[in-house]
């Protein structure tokens, strides 16, 4: 059974059909790409998968559970975490706190423990601290732990968003243009990091990207959409030579 099974997903905004009959099936541990020209509806698909938008029709089954109509935080609990195209960090909080907040659900002390500083508070906070540091190590950001998120350079902000999403212990990670604004060196590091994450945490990754090196480089299978509809599905070689894809990107 696929980890994420999406069928016939459609959303209409007033008279405009932004996404029409989208479908995708992702196995556990799979590296999947979602590409298409600007405005094709990729982020809209993400927003539906993560509960930000309510689809007009269609089904989304994550790890055997139907998640259409669920709140974003319930979908995180079901195992899907995401990053944002425009980076949505908690700007006035430290890097470490950004990660710790995502670790929230796994901290097992209640509000009374917190207020009265009972032992479980200290234990769980220490565990969270260690866990956050381990995650930051993967992205080589341990030394920035106490910096405010808003003061980080752009590349590190993107990395932090991924680290934060990982802290929710997801089964599938949805990355929205993680390489945007990165130079080739940073992009290469990102590719290695994505492989590392997939291998270490055994999670699937669905990637929206415009950087073709990245997509063709690491994605095992790619779905292409244009004007809200799927126009091709295949492995990188198939997609590269697909005439519909070429037409969509370059025009007639």
């Amino acid at each position, binding site marked *: 059974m696929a980890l994420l099974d999406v069928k016939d997903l459609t959303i209409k905004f007033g008279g405009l059909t932004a996404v029409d009959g989208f479908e995708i099936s992702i196995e556990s541990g799979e590296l999947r790409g979602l590409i298409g020209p600007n405005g094709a509806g990729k982020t809209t698909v993400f927003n539906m998968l*993560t*509960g*930000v938008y309510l689809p007009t029709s269609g089904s989304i089954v994550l790890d055997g559970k139907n998640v259409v109509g669920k*709140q*974003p*935080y319930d979908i*995180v*609990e079901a195992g899907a*975490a*995401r990053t*944002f195209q425009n980076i*949505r*960090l*908690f*700007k*006035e*909080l430290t890097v470490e*706190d950004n990660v*710790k*907040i*995502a670790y*929230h*659900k796994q*901290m097992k*002390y209640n*509000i009374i423990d*917190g*207020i*009265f*500083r009972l032992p479980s*508070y*200290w234990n*769980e*906070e*220490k565990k*969270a*601290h260690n866990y956050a540091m381990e995650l930051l190590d993967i992205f080589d950001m341990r030394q920035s732990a106490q910096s405010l998120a808003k003061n980080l350079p752009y590349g590190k902000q993107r990395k932090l968003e991924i680290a*934060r*999403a990982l*802290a*929710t212990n997801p089964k599938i990670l949805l990355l929205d243009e993680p390489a945007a604004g990165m130079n080739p060196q940073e992009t290469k590091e990102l590719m290695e990091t994505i492989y590392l994450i997939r291998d270490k945490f055994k999670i699937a990754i669905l990637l929206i990207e415009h950087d073709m090196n990245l997509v063709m480089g690491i994605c095992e299978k790619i779905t292409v959409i244009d004007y809200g509809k799927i126009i091709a599905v295949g492995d990188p070689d198939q997609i590269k030579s697909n005439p519909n894809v070429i037409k969509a990107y370059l025009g007639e």
Partner: protein
Amino acid sequence: MAGKNKKSNVINLIAIILVFVLLNILTTSGIVSRYFAGILVTCFINIVMASSLNLTVGYLGQLALGHAGFMAVGAYASALFSIAINEMGMPATIQLVLSLIVAGIITAIIGYLIGLPALRLKGDYLAIITLGFGEIIRVAINNFKFTGGAQGLTGIPKIVNSNNSYWVTIVVLVVLYTLTRSRHGRAMKSIMEDEIASEAVGIDTIKFKALGFTISAFFAGVGGGLYAQYTAFLDPSTFGFMKSVEILTIVILGGMGSLTGTVVASFILTLLPELLRDFAEYRMLLYSAVLIIMMIFRPQGILGTKEFSLTGALRIPAAIREKKRAQNDAEGGDL
């Protein structure tokens, strides 16, 4: 890490007790007049009101304009309860604590109920709906018989003094401090920073907004209870929109999200009107001018989101020495 925290806890505890001893000596020996002791009580009440509002405004980031309504509920609830149990002859402290708990719980319930429709709204809409609720509470109190109506409520036991109000204030501040530095406080802060991102990392924003708002209402009720059993007389017109604005001014002046700032601002905005007694009619003029100037030039308030740390302050001499030594090393010589 835990060791450092234990040390700073001990230092803070000693400081709190020292301040209390000082306070006690000053008031009982008569060095500080009865009048001034009364100002201190007012100040403590303002601290409780402002820090409870700070949780909603400075931590959840929601502008709530009906805080005076919560104060009213707490005031009347504690007053009626205290009047009811007055004949039982229990020690004043116990009577006070019980009445404050009752006040807090009842206000928290009202806060939760108001939060149900209110917290689904954002920004301006939330502000106005809380304003509306605050006004409805005031009108209701003005019209009910059991609250004494427009004539007010009298005969409330006057059991609050500078000592017990000090301890209540300390408890409130400590609880708010530990709450905001727990995972629940972090979750609330994340909602203020970016609600959509907060949901995207698994925070049940509806639950946490309700939690923060209800706790804020609880402590507002406690503050109201202190007020009622200090002034011993309640007049519904005290609890109008203007009162909500006064409390908000303290929060803004001190810095949204800073408890220390709230304490400092409470002192300033309680003492100032007293010192300027002769200029009483200029008081609201001053408040409003201060607010406008702050919003334009220093919206983050006196302390911003920083807190004053006693342990940090005590380390200043050592830090200065360390800095001198580092400077000296950098210059390549010895002293």
